[in-house]
Structures are given as C-alpha cells and as structure tokens.
C-alpha cells in the first residue's frame, strides 16, 4: 500500500472504517465498526471483552495497519508495575555519567542532578512510548494485571499525561488510539470501564465466519471454508472447556490447506483436531460424540 496514511479524522462513518478494515482482511460487523469509529472520533479507549480468539487483538493490529501507525503493545501480567509499564531511569548510564563527571572534576551537585535526570536517561516503557508517538496502543489482557495497575492505567488513560517527579509532566500531543482487551478472568474496575467504550465481541455468525476465512486465506476452496465454519459453529454449541474462536478456525483451515485437503471428512478432521481444540478433554468429548455427526449435522 503506497497510499498516504489515513488520519483518524478522515474516517467519516462506521461504514468507512469497516471498508478500511476489510481492506486489511478484517471483517467488522456494524457494532464493532461503530465502536472503532467512535473510539477514533471521541478519542476514547475501546474496551473489548469476549472469549479468546474472537478477534480482539487482531482489531488493534488491523487498526494500526489502517492508520499506518506503529502498534505498541503492552501485554499485562500479574505483578506488572510502573517501572515496566510507564518508564524507568537508566541506572547504569546515570552512574557512568556521574563517574565521568567526577573524573572531569565537576562537583556541582545541582548541575549534576539536572544532567542525570534528563530525558535521555529515561527509558520509555510502552505507555510512555505511546504518548510520545502517533500510534495504536494495545493493552492486552488487562484482567491479568493486578488492580493496583488499573489505578495508574486509569490515570494515563483519563488525560493522556504521565508525571515524572524529576522531570515534569509528559503530555501526548496526539492521544494514541487505545484498545484494551480483557478475557474476563477477573472483574475490571468500573472506573476504568467508564473511561472507555465497552464492546462485547461475539463469535461471528456462520456466513461471516465463511467470509472471514475466505478473506484471510484466499487459496481456500469455498466448500472447505464452509465446512470448517460449520464445524466450528457446531463445536461452539457443545459444552467445551475452550470453544474455538475465529483464530482457531483459521488455524484449522490453514492446517488443512497445508495437508492439501480439499474436503473435510472425519479422518482428516481427526488428525487435525489439535488445531481447533486445545484441551484433551474437549477432543475426547468431540471424538466420543462422533466426528461424522459434527461434520454432517449443524
């Protein structure tokens, strides 16, 4: 794509955004397109919830492609703290600088202090990076971080500033496009959700899933795409530990294509089942019920 990057303000309707996303292989329904459009227009973070593999992370990646902006990703985990998410001082370099100053005979404390607490000794972590560049910021799986983290995330997302005691306040000239995702393993604090536009992503309908598979994997025969989508829909109706998402349907299709399969039958389904079902219990359950009935019924 050699075209000039698209600016957030150029997107004039949800439909325009949907078309742009589709240009990069992401099919968004009306709700998601409206959410994305309002996120761009109102400069509000998008808070996306839904099962794993429904396309939460993929949306952020595709938005970055659409806007021609880098994607900055902050993967959350338990114990994530400010030094890893916001900024940290580059301690070894500060120390080196002080040693060099000592060797040069400089002993003015005030001057040295101003020198070592300078922007160039500051290491920008994802949230600070996101304020300093035009980008799409993906805060992935926020439910994995502990609730203390939510407090300073809220601070950053409410006015897009970070205050550093030694340096002052850093303000984003252009607030980043923010996508926050959660798998809902833990309840996220209401104050954070309040800052955001909340969207719950469902698994796609059969027709949409077929369209997604064909859009993402153009080499796939339509018949195979339909079979995979139908089987995935059937699997989601079962009471599984981890129902497959679109990501799994795509993996499955890719695996079948790699094997040169043109049609999904019980035998090929049995050998490739690991691409869609990632729990032994789920696989056993589906096999016990009969793969033939999964492929035929639905």
């Amino acid at each position, binding site marked *: 794509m050699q075209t000039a990057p698209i600016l957030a303000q150029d997107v004039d309707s949800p439909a325009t955004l949907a078309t742009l996303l589709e240009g990069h292989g992401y099919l968004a329904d009306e709700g998601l397109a409206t959410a994305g*459009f309002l996120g761009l227009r109102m400069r509000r973070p998008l808070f996306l919830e839904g099962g794993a593999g429904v396309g939460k992370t993929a949306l952020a990646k595709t938005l970055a492609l659409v806007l021609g902006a880098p994607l900055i990703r902050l993967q959350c985990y338990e114990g994530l703290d400010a030094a890893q998410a916001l900024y940290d001082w580059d301690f070894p370099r500060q120390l080196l600088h002080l040693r060099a100053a000592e060797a040069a005979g400089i*002993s003015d404390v005030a001057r040295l202090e101003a020198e070592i607490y300078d922007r160039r000794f500051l290491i920008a972590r994802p949230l600070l990076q996101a304020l300093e560049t035009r980008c799409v910021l993906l805060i992935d799986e926020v439910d994995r971080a502990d609730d203390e983290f939510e407090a300073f995330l809220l601070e950053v997302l409410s006015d897009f500033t970070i205050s550093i005691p030694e340096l002052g306040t850093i303000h984003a000239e252009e607030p980043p496009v923010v996508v926050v995702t959660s798998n809902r393993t833990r309840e996220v604090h*209401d104050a954070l959700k*309040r800052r955001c536009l909340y969207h719950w992503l469902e698994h796609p309908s059969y027709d949409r899933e077929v369209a997604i598979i064909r859009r993402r994997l153009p080499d796939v025969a339509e018949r195979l795409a339909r079979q995979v989508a139908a089987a995935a829909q059937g699997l989601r109706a079962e009471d599984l530990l981890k129902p497959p998402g679109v990501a799994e349907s795509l993996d499955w299709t890719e695996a079948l294509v790699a094997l040169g399969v043109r049609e999904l039958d019980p035998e090929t389904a049995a050998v490739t089942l690991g691409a869609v079902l990632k729990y032994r219990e789920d696989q056993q359950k589906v096999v016990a019920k009969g793969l033939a009935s999964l492929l035929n019924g639905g």
Partner: protein
Amino acid sequence: MRDVTATLVGFARTLRAAGVGADAQRLQTMVRALDHLDVLDPSDVYWAGRLTLCADPDDLTRYDRCFAAYFAGETPRPGRRQPPPVVIMQSAAMPSEGTQSGESSDVRVTMASATEVLRNRDVARLSAAERAEVHRLIALLAASAAQRRSRRFAPATSGRLDPHRTIRAVLQRGGEISRLHHRTHTHRPRRVVLLVDVSGSMAPYADALLRFAHAVVRSAPRSTEVFSIGTRLTRLTLDLRHRDSDTAMTAVSVAIPDWSGGTRLGEELKEFLDRFGQRGLARGAVVVIASDGWERGDAALLGEQMVRLRRLAHRVVWANPHKARPGYEPLTAGMAAALPAVDDFVEGHSLGALERLAEVIGRA
C-alpha cells in the same frame, strides 16, 4: 424527536430500573457519541447507547430488552422499588437434628484432657459449661490473615538494588560510589471478609462462628470485614471491634435483625457484591462464607454470584458445619451450585474445625 436529551434521560432511567448502571456520566458520553452519528438512525442510537451505557455482558440482554421496549413506545414504567421480599420463615422441622446418637464422649471427658475432647465436639451438642469453655478458647484463636506482597518498596539492608537511592547518594558525594542501597517489597495483610449465615438451620453454630469472626477482627482489625447473611445483609465489622467478646456478641445480637430466619443466600451474596464486594472489599481478599448452603431461593442465582465472587476474590473458603457429619455430601441445591467456585471447602462445627479454618485463612 421532540427533545433528544429528554428522551435519552428517560431511556437511561428505564435501564437503571432494569439493573444496568447507566448513570449521568455514562449518559453524557452517549450524547457525545451521538454527535458523531445519526440520531435519527435507530441502529446508530442502539450502538451509541450499548457502547457507552453497558459495562458487562450481563448488561447486554437487559439493554436489548429495554431498547426494544422503550423505543417501540411502550415505555415500561420504571417500578419505584422492587416489591418487598417475601421472607420464608424456616419451620422447626428443618434438617433433622438430634436424631443421631451423641458420641460416646461422656466417659472420655474424665480421662483425656477436657480441652482435647472439647476440641472435636460439635458445638451444637455442648452443655452450657462446655460451651462457655469453648467460647473462651475461640476468643484466644489468632486467625492472622495471610500476608500479600505489596507493590510498594521499602529500604532494606539486602535485596534488590535501589537505583534511585543509590544515584542520590552518589550525587551527594560528587560522583563517588560509596555504597549500594537496597530495597525490598513491603508486605500487607490480605483482607479477610467473613459472611456468616445466621438463618434458622445455622442457629446452633452461628454463635460460635460469630465468636470466631470476633477473634479474626481482634487479630487484624484494619483488614477484616464481617457480615451476617440470612434474609438481610448486615455489616457487623464495627460491632465486633469491642475488645471483650461478650460485649461484642451483645452488640452483634442487637445489630442482626434476622436471627434464625430463612435463607436467601444468592440474593444476599448479590447484595454484598453489589454494595461492597465489587467496589473493592472483595477484591484480592480471602472471602469466607460460613453457611450450610441451605438455599430457599434460586440456587442458580447463588451459583452465578459465586462465580462473580470467585473472579473478584483471591480465595473463596466455604465453611459448612454440616460437612463433619458422617456420610455428608453437598447435595443441597445451594451447596452444589456454589461448590465449583469454592477453593477450600472446610468444616466449622467444632473448636478444632475453627482452628483449621484459621489455618486455611492464614495460608491463603
């Protein structure tokens, strides 16, 4: 479309009546969102509202229902209040008590140390004197809450390097590194929340369990919260701050309006989570529910709320005094619905069981 704002305010009110937290701030966001969309397009209005007024997948079905009803014209009159809850009084012939033969303990009392025997006796079957002794021993229990590592650091003699203090010290000495400073994570006691069932079927145990709660409050007053559940949710934390356990118990008995009433565990738990838990009380806490799981309401609701609790709490402990009975199985609908979300399922019928409960809390 006479007045968009007035229409939307009415819509938000309908939503709130249905249980969606569509407050004024959220409504404002919706109005701003509509600035960018077409107010006359029902689909745009639907999405603008759904994206800004909802905050939970549970909200979505309610939202859809309200949206359909409200914008179809048949504005459902938001009920002023929910009808007063029907309180089902427990009949005296509840779970069969006393039909079991008492253990052959009379002889042993004289032989072994009296405390040792008392330790394993079911508190429901004690004489007045024995009960007083057990109460004295419960008051001595130290159920110290487990420590959690806090995000904060404190200076320490060893541990991780503290770059900031080291740099500051170097700076003070004009560039000379004299010594390295260290820091370590501080520790905070984890919050413990006790929900004690005071309904009729729990009557023989409620006293001992509340005394246990008092002991926990005494050992960690700042990080313990106690509620009674039955037909009403009552916060007992302040009443239990009295040093003397008998004074505390008197205060508690005045505070609890529904002693020996029925049980609506699901609704009570929901109320606890709505009013206290979700806002922060249950977050990262060790939540102990002391109940026999005898649910007179909808067991499905209890199961649902337990899952919700599980997502908020650090650990969910359920103490069921009836668990100690020979051949006990968690067959009551409430207990069966709650168990999948419980981390530790323990007893709670005797002094020894309460000691073990204290251990579970301390270990969590």
